[in-house]
């Protein structure tokens, strides 16, 4: 069974139709790259997956469980909403780190706040709570090591380079163990010499059963890291296939033109 299934997803803002029926599915452990020219609706698609936008029509299913279904008008409880939200993680183009917290606290904040709530609800003992807290902190340390920023643990975001900020943002998203981790052009806010470190960090996450959806303008990267590539144009999926198929033998004229433009730069 697919981990993620998107069916007939439509989204418009006022009178502009941005997504006009998106269908795709993803297996557990797969890496999907989404490419396409500016304004084709890539960000909107990711935002719909992460509940930052509400689609007008369609269905989103994770492991057979509908997290969004436009035909189902039943209101979801706050708990269910949160559970659905946490199935997805999102790394923003502009990082959106919390400036007043250290790198380490940025990673632990959400989990710590959630712990406070469950501790109250389930009447955890002080020792249980302390153990859970220690686990959250230890995990943050492991994630920081993974993105190569252990020595920046106590720094504040304003003391970091853009590339370092984005690696912290990746660790922050990973801290909540999302089933599907999404990236929206994770390197386009960075100086060219900093994109490499971030792309390497993302590449190192591949493997095992980590499922990722990456919107990117880095064609080389998409080709190397993705199992599956979607080319979007004007709110629809114009072409989908393996990197070899899309980059090696593009069928659609729009994709050919898009790839040609990328080569010309």
């Amino acid at each position: 069974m697919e981990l993620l299934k998107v069916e007939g997803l439509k989204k418009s803002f006022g009178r502009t139709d941005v997504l006009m029926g998106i269908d795709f599915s993803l297996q557990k452990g797969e890496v999907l790259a989404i490419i396409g020219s500016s304004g084709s609706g890539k960000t909107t698609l990711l935002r719909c997956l992460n509940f930052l936008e509400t689609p007008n029509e369609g269905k989103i299913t994770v492991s057979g469980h509908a997290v969004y279904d436009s035909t189902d008008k039943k209101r979801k409880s706050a708990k269910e909403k949160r559970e659905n939200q946490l199935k997805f993680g999102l790394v923003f183009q502009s990082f959106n780190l919390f400036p007043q917290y250290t790198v380490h606290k940025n990673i632990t904040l959400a989990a710590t706040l959630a712990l406070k709530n469950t501790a109250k609800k389930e009447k955890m003992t002080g020792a249980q709570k302390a153990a859970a807290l220690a686990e959250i902190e230890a995990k943050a340390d492991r994630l920081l090591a993974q993105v190569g920023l252990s020595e920046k643990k106590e720094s504040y975001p304003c003391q970091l380079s853009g590339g370092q900020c984005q690696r912290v943002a990746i660790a922050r998203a990973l801290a909540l163990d999302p089933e599907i981790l999404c990236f929206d052009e994770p390197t386009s806010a960075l100086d060219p010499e900093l994109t490499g470190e971030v792309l390497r960090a993302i590449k190192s996450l591949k493997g095992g059963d980590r499922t990722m959806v990456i919107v990117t303008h880095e064609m080389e990267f998409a080709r190397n890291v993705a199992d599956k590539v979607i080319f979007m144009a004007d709110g629809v999926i114009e072409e989908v296939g393996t990197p070899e198929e899309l980059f090696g033998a593009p069928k659609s004229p729009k994709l050919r033109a898009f790839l040609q433009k990328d080569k010309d730069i």
Partner: protein
Amino acid sequence: MFSSLSEWFSKELPAIGERFVNAFLPESAEEFMTIAESLWSGFTTTLELFALTLLFALPLGLIISFGSMSKFKPLKYLMKIIVWIVRGTPLMLQIFIVFFIPGIVFNNPIFKQDRFLAALITFVLNYACYFSEIYRGGIESISVGQYEAGQVLGMTKAQTFFHVVLLQVIKRILAPISNEVITLVKDTSLVRVISVIEIIKVAERFSSQGLLWPLFFTSVYYLVFNGILTLLFGYIEKKLSYFRS
């Protein structure tokens, strides 16, 4: 009046000098101490009004700012109208109105016994409206990315506001808030229009007895107090300078 300039110099000038000395210099250390003390007792009213106004107006302003940013249109416009009226009319007029309404409209002049309460209510409402606009500006200046980051990390709206946004808002609004706070110290002198005895009212009594220095000396109280506030705000600003947002 004077036949010559030399006569003016020899007669009037010394008299002016004497009146000047009498008006501007305390006669004795005792006189200075007693007057400084009654000025201080007037200043405690000022301080009390100042502290209580901040205590209530700072949180009330937050509530009003939430109201004026509400998606529920009637509430939003109600708040905007209140803020428009309060900011669009003189504080002195508002003090009079609040003071006289219970007596004239409800035939129950409750504020006759407690004039200070009338002043306090007016100040709280007035300052809450000014604060609410500062808060609104601060809250709206925080990028939506901060809220969205909170949401995708599974935080509730309240958690995102109190743990992510609030401190950034405080950092941004510190300068305009400190301006308002210092204005508040000076605005407290308006309460004398409904005969609440504050420091300037006390000093004025002495000047009607021919003493000018108490009037000047009140400025020392204001200057010292505002100096302390300025240092305090500078300290908070420094404390929050460890991050940029």
